């Protein structure tokens, strides 16, 4: 059926749809920009200990976050860099968060992908950069062994000395 349709006519409705979407997107991205600016403001004002984040360059939709390893864990005194990528549908959908610094952890794979429920199905529009980074920080201290991305890390979690050696080795890379 599609072959019989004149391409010119077929494309026209698509074009108008695109322009509509484009307008919606600019509206959206304006709202997203506004919210991200607010988050940046409050993050800078709050002087949160242990986590920080700042947009990478001029692009407000891509941030670099830093997490200090939680105290009294094998991650203590370590600084982890993360990349946060915000979609146009933010905050209705979660940002894409990834570790830049390689991290040995049951719920973080070798490429830095994180398995955390609030970044997937448990996402809420209320969460912001600060709460995301704090959640990841507490994930470092309390991994979820039952659904590991890094099977070796999950296995070694019960052997602190070996686990620590792996953490330090991975961190140095």
């Amino acid at each position, binding site marked *: 059926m599609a072959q019989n349709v004149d391409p010119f006519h077929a494309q026209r409705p698509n074009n108008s749809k695109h322009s509509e979407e484009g307008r919606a997107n600019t509206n959206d991205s304006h709202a997203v920009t506004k*919210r991200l600016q*607010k*988050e940046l403001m*409050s993050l800078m004002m709050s002087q949160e200990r242990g986590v920080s984040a700042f947009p990478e360059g001029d692009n407000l939709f891509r941030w670099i976050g830093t997490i200090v390893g939680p105290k009294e864990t094998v991650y203590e005194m370590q600084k982890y860099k993360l990349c946060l990528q915000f979609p146009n549908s933010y*905050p209705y*959908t979660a940002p894409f968060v990834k570790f830049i610094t390689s991290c040995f952890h049951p719920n973080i794979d070798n490429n830095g992908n994180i398995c955390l429920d609030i970044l997937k199905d448990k996402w809420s*529009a*209320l969460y912001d950069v600060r709460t995301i980074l704090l959640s990841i920080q507490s994930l470092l201290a309390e991994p979820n062994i039952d659904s590991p991305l890094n099977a070796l890390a999950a296995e070694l979690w019960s052997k602190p000395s070996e686990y620590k050696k792996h953490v330090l080795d991975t961190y140095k890379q």
Partner: protein
Amino acid sequence: MASSSTSSKNVNDGGPDTADRDEKKDDRTFECNICLDTARDAVVSMCGHLFCWPCLHQWLETRSSRQVCPVCKAAISKEKVVPLYGRGSTKQEDPREKVPPRPAGQRTEPENGSTFPGFGFGDTGFHMSFGIGAFPFGFFTSTFNFGDSRPGAAPHGTPQHLEEQYLSKLFLWLAVIFIFWLLLA
């Protein structure tokens, strides 16, 4: 609250700073939980959380399968939010927004206390029943009248005897009709 602190700004010595901070704090209380801006076309969920109506509508649209409050994750729905009508806030609607209008507030008239509870005509709790207690024992009491000291029957032929015969037949028929009625009813 904010207005009172700003008006007393000049009087208060350490005024301007604290007043400004108070104002900011007050502003944050009325921020939408999604866009973090002062709530516009504000609605409140049944769990008490404040949102802009466009923001909450979009949140519910993106999560149409599992509609929960972004703050406390209680179940919420579009129908069950209460709009907030501040002073002069009705003209703030942006017609370009492609969201359905905010649901209207629900208003019920106060009840006046003239009706008694339970006496309404629509009340279904009313039952009525007739009963005859100890029905079969009535026969015994009327058939076996031992040792009673009632006067004996009148002698035959007297008008009193005829009257008694007549009354006895009448009551017998009444009793038969009554028993038939009981059986049929």
